[in-house]
């Protein structure tokens, strides 16, 4: 049973995931209306606590909250504890005193949403923490694949790129394996985390082998500073071996779809023409992101506290 917070997919049961996805499918209808607003969370306050800037994710949560009539407040403390006086937990205590109904947390370091949830009365939704998890991204990816393929069970999903530093990869590994898919990861060996097989996936150093028979090809955004020689020798070598283009996509199934959490480095991890339109579903992912986040906010921020029940 889903807890008070959404900190990671690792903590969820299959039934929790299915419930979120079903709720998201109902929320999609709101986005198609002339007046894209329902009163569900009227009078509730949602705080977007973003220590790391992310215009896309923050905007997606903001739109989701507003479509549910919540009051959405953006709070962006300047980066880390290293650079300012107040500790992360002091920031959380200050916020708690303002009595929000849900707090959406984004931070460049793994574990911060969990530590904040430990001191906060309100539910915490992890909007991405370091290389740990990005649960709403994985849930919207599940929703997108479900709509494309009609199922998750039995599919083969290949995740390609910097798995070591990717929260999207970790959340998607948990999400797809929990719903019965076979997940493969492909990257240069320097970008595969230690003991990755303990997550229930198989690692490939060959893009061709990883894509063989895949239904879904998920490309990860590569951070350019990691291409400067520490993990791979150059952008050129990375693109040549792990970048996806239409030729390499032929290794996958004929009806394979291509996904990317964005923002896309065109010409690095994915060829220019492959990022736009079929078989790419990148904009469907963005569209589904709003509905999925509405579902999560509804399920967590919509709960009435015992005090409110009176």
């Amino acid at each position, binding site marked *: 049973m889903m807890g008070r917070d959404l900190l990671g997919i690792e903590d969820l049961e299959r039934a929790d995931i299915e419930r979120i996805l079903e709720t998201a499918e109902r929320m999609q209808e709101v986005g198609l209306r002339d007046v894209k607003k329902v009163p569900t969370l009227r009078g509730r306050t949602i705080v977007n606590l973003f220590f790391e800037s992310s215009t896309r994710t923050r905007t997606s949560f903001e739109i989701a909250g507003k479509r549910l009539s919540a009051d959405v407040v953006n709070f962006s403390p300047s980066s880390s504890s290293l650079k300012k006086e107040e500790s992360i937990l002091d920031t959380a205590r200050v916020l708690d005193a303002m009595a929000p109904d849900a707090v959406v947390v984004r931070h460049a370091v*793994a574990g911060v949403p969990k530590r904040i949830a430990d001191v906060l009365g309100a539910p915490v939704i992890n909007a991405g923490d370091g290389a740990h998890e990005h649960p709403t991204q994985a849930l919207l990816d599940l929703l997108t694949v479900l709509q494309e393929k009609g199922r998750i069970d039995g599919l083969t999903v290949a995740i390609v790129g910097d798995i070591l530093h990717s929260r999207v990869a970790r959340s998607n590994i948990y999400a797809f394996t929990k719903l019965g898919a076979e997940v493969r990861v492909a990257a240069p060996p320097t970008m595969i985390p*230690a003991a990755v097989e303990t997550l229930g996936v198989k690692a490939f150093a060959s893009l061709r082998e990883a894509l063989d028979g895949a239904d879904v090809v998920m490309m990860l955004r590569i951070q350019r500073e990691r291409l400067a020689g520490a993990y791979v020798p150059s952008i050129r070598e990375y693109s040549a071996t792990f970048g996806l283009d239409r030729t390499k996509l032929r290794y996958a199934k004929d009806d394979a779809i291509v996904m990317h959490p964005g923002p896309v480095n065109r010409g690095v991890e994915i060829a220019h023409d492959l990022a736009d339109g079929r078989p790419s579903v990148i904009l469907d992912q963005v569209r589904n992101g709003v509905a999925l986040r509405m579902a999560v906010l509804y399920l967590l921020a919509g709960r009435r506290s015992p005090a409110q029940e009176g």
Partner: protein
Amino acid sequence: MDRVLIRGGRVLDPAGERDEIADVLLEGGRIAAVGPHLEAVGAAVVEAAGRWVAPGFVDLHAHLREPGQEYKEDIASGGRAAVAGGFTAVACMANTQPANDDPSVTDYVLDRARQDSPARVYPIAAATKGLAGEVMTEMAALVRAGAVGFSDDGKTIMDGGVMRRVLEYSRLVDAPVIVHAEDRTLVRDGVVNEGPVSTRLGLPGNPAVAEAVHVARDLLLAELTGAHLHVAHVSTAAAVELIRRARERGIHVTAEVTPHHLTLTDEETLGYDTNTKVAPPLRSAADMQACRRALADGTLDAVATDHAPHAVHEKEVEFTAAPPGLIGLETALAVVLDLVRAGEIAPLELVRRLSSNPARILRRPGGSLAPGTVADLVLVDPELRWTYEPTKGWSKSRNSPWAGRTLQGRAVATWVEGRLVYDVERGVLAP
């Protein structure tokens, strides 16, 4: 109260190879007699049935933070935490502010200890000036001032040429060079043991090989120079194996292990509790088991706490930004008694690794209950159950992974030079 008779306890004397029920008589700050049914007219009597009577513990590795970071700990509070944990002597690391790289700092530490610490304090001086890993310190002058060993601790000397000269020069003063063995070029930004746990947490991994590589280098340098190398807080099976083989080859190496590396694994970090962040990191279960076996078979000579106090606000930050370290003086005994209860080590052998072995490594007296020796000793209740609350402890800091846990076994009385300095009912009594 000059004469004290400790009656009917289990006397554990590693120097005398004694493990038997006996009485111990203290007189004039020294041990006057040990034996069955001692007569001591007029002596104060301490009933010790069911308890252990052991030489006071000697901690090879603590951070007392004075001078410079007294908000974390000072010599008075650290000394109190020590005797409350059964330690009658504590060796303190040189990474103070200023660093203990000059005889004036060593003098200051010893002066403060004489005034305010119920436990003996043995300063470990820096191996290089400013802990910068470049220019060696004035070892002869530091030893004359009272330094017992040399270490840059967490500021590991990465320059092999400097380390070779430090080891060579240390032969002049007959003191150990203590190494925090982690190759920083392999650790990089690692904060948690590299493996399944670092992968799940999404935190940068610190590979076990970073320790083993550095231990291998320093063992070869110890062999080259003939110096005494002491490896601090061994945490990996690979380092244990290297030390075992080096000792078989006759290299002068000793080694310590912490209570946390003997009983906790990296899985403690799964909740991102920064009080589980320590250097070297908590390792895998296989590494922990290797350390336990090595302590039992003597490859690891001593238990040392690496007591490292940090203020609450310093730990309430991102896991990557938190300073590594945990406090351990008050919990060490209870934690390592787990090895006795598991049948992995005999009580006498555990006491040896807490007292006579660390004293021998530092060339200091201790670890003996022979008549005539200075009466530094501890009375242990190995069964006593108690809940550890750092806020009620003697350290100024609270950064402990055992906070709130029920532990078993505790020092119930501690004597330094025949004087009762700690009693579990009354607390720290002196100075």
